[in-house]
């Protein structure tokens, strides 16, 4: 309970792995579907993660929340099996089958005992290719989602990040979160959901990672079973690339609460930028890790201003960002913001030592294998490696990418990509002595 590090949405920072522990195999099914596999026969469990490129960024303006509602209802009946029967089979066979919508991808998970793998992949096929979207489950999930949206409208962190994204990406799919609004969710029809499934889910934009008690041959057959009847190509066009429009705003959103939530951010590097690894190390020094960053030291350890504080790279498909957050009592918001800005400026000015760099590199490389401790965690990493086009040998190369970062690299990247004067800041609460700008 000491500190929950910031989970800035999902793919904030990916620590890939130290490969000697695991062998990644590329499996191509008889019909040509690719999956990356790490075999592990120590426990009779198979974990699957998959993703279709294209997420909530593609939701139509008046139907925001479409991908999210599809994710919530695709496991509520398919083929001849209605919602209750479908859920009952999953429960009786202890099969986890779920979907989720992110900005950039529509993703899913299957986790099953080996003995039920055939049935699990069969149910996945039905859900992907013959979802029913019956009136009852759609109405039920809409009601739950809308209740969630109403509740979120009073959650300081959610309010703050939504406002930040709205400011950074005006007019773009990234401006609003995957949930949509009460009105836009209500407007979604069964026909919209069917069209979603038909146009967005295809073999051509599919990525699969599998870990557990399955051989490549068995997996080949399972892949064909689940994904073989999907269309070859999806039918959509991505939104254009964009960039975060940070201009140094300081915006206060009034809520009668004792503690203010502060979020901040501006543009950053995308995952394929050649300086990405240097930026990763640089951010680790400023605001990453758990108990060692400069923000942690200055905001929490020295001044006791906040319980949680930190920053993360947030590379999305169409834009990169660096974002962070802190929470402090209303009276001390102004001081906290000053400290954050000062740390941004100090790093941007190139004030960083060889020792700090060395410590950051040993952490970022040494913590690399710690993520490989469950089948599902490994399956997620296999998907991320493919999403980011990192290559099958990435696990062997990754630490060398980190180790090769020099002090000059960190200074250069900090000067180019950290802009204290451009940081957009949102405060939710009743902060004292804050004068909003812009």
């Amino acid at each position, binding site marked *: 309970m000491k500190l929950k590090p910031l989970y800035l949405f999902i793919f904030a920072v990916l620590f890939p792995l130290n490969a000697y522990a695991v062998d990644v195999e590329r499996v191509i099914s008889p019909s040509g579907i690719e999956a990356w596999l790490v075999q592990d026969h120590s426990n009779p469990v198979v974990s699957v993660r998959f993703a279709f490129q294209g997420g909530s960024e593609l939701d139509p303006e008046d139907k925001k929340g479409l991908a999210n509602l599809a994710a919530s209802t695709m496991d509520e009946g398919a083929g001849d099996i209605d919602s209750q029967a479908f859920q009952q089979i999953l429960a009786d066979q202890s099969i986890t089958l779920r979907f989720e919508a992110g900005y950039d991808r529509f993703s899913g998970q299957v986790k099953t005992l080996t003995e039920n793998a055939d049935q699990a992949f069969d149910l996945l096929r039905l859900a992907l290719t013959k979802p029913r979207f019956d009136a009852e489950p759609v109405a039920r999930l809409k009601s*739950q989602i809308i209740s969630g949206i109403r509740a979120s409208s009073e959650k300081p962190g959610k309010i703050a990040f939504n406002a930040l994204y709205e400011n950074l990406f005006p007019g773009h799919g990234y401006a609003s979160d995957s949930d949509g609004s009460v009105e836009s969710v209500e407007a979604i029809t069964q026909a919209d959901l069917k069209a979603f499934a038909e146009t967005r889910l295809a073999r051509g934009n599919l990525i699969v990672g599998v870990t557990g008690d399955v051989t490549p041959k068995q997996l080949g057959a399972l892949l064909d079973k689940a994904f073989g009847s999907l269309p070859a190509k999806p039918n959509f066009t991505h939104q254009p690339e964009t960039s975060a429009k940070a201009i140094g705003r300081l915006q206060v959103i009034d809520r009668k609460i004792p503690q203010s939530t502060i979020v901040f951010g501006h543009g950053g590097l995308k995952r394929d930028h050649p300086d990405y690894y240097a930026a990763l190390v640089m951010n680790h020094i400023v605001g990453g*890790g758990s108990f060692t960053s400069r923000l942690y030291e200055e905001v929490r350890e020295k001044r006791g201003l906040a319980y949680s504080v930190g920053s993360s790279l947030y590379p999305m498909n169409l834009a990169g960002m660096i974002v962070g957050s802190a929470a402090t009592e209303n009276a001390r918001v102004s001081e906290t913001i000053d400290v954050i800005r000062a740390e941004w400026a100090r790093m941007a000015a190139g004030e960083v030592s060889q020792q700090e760099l060395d410590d950051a590199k040993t952490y970022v490389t040494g913590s690399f294998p710690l993520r490989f401790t469950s089948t599902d*965690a490994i399956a997620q990493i296999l998907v991320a490696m493919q999403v980011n086009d990192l290559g099958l040998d990435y696990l062997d190369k990754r630490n060398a990418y980190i180790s090769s970062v020099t002090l000059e690299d960190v200074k250069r990247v900090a000067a180019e990509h950290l802009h204290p004067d451009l940081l957009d800041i949102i405060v939710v609460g009743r902060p004292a002595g804050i004068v909003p700008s812009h």
Partner: protein
Amino acid sequence: MSKALAIVISLFLVLIAAGNRAQAGVFNPHTFTLDNGMEVVVLPNHRAPVVLHMVWYKAGSTDEPKGKSGIAHLLEHLMFKGTPKFPNGEFSKRVAQHGGQENAFTSLDYTGYYQTVASDRLEMVMELEADRMTNLVLNAEDVATERAVVLEERNQRIENKPAARLNEKALQKLYPQGHPYGRPVIGWRDELAALTREDALSFYKTNYAPDNAILVVAGDVKVDDVKRLAERYYGPIAKAGVNKRPSIISLGDIQGGETVLRDPRVKQISWSENIIQPSLTNGDPTRVVALEILAELLGGGGTSRLYRALVIEQPLADSVGTYYDSSQRGDGRFVFYASPRPGVPLAQLTQAVRDEVQKLLDQGLKPDELEKIKKRMQADAIFSRDAMKTGAWTIGGVLAREHKIDDIEKWPERVMAVTEADVVNALKAVMAEPRRIVTKLLPADKVGDSQ
């Protein structure tokens, strides 16, 4: 060992396991006790070259002196400050320099510290953790700063969240008369603000000792290596003769009641009913497992009786469910909870919950209903072996709350032994229990509340 021989042996082990399926445990831990009384649990798991090292102290917020609520948790924060050998936050710096991740946690019944590191760094973290078991140094300034951090943590976790404030009020009523479960782990604000360096050191000296601690090591390790290292680093620490903890089984005589919190920030109404039930401390194992099965079939997820009736069929609720916590050192709790769909009066929803309960009491279980849940729970035991950390957290938590490893390892066979009558009788006892609290989280404007 030759590969062929290894295969023969492992086949033999598989056959033994298959032949004794009912006896097969969940995590199959290796356990031993050091001469100074420190319990040790080892859970080998060789998926990744990684080890999880944890030390659990049998001391949580329930062990705090009167008027010092929050001291167990504040001390947990202060444990990162330093010792003569590793001063000025050196602990976290070293762990990070070795690529390790770490954290700590405080609960009602225990406090724990853990690091995840490459398996060849086990010795490094063991040396650090053993050192701070008895050598902590604190200065007043560090304590004052950290107290401010914890007050912010309290803001973040409690004051800013209407549901958390309601929960705090309700627990005070459910566990009255100064019962330690009636006060929050993080502490009451005024008591927390007054805690001192001396309070922290006093709690530390009373509770932090090898004979009040459990070492749990999971991951890519050999049992003999852990034993050798534990004897080297934890072995020399003198036992403190820590007193046996007093029983905290509730003797309160409350006869029900209601706790309501209204707040303009509440956008979704929620209701719960919290009912005292036995825990593993004072419950017959069959009754405890029957309560777990009851919670699953009444309100465990999207195929449960309550969800089907109230969310899908009628439909009155956005969410509804039940859960049962058997793991506390004090009483267990059986909980019903629900959120109405917009416009549905709360009274109608709670009546529908009672109707479903009555239906189960009147008609008993459906054919196969119990068998399906038992099968699912057996699968849960297999899934629980998937992640390296699950066994460590589960067994550490059980031992720190004075329960037995058998309460985990024999769980699958206890599940199989439960009968329909056990489940129905468990429900009867839940409904008859007078120690219960209803909570309601409502918007300030009374919309949707017919009470």
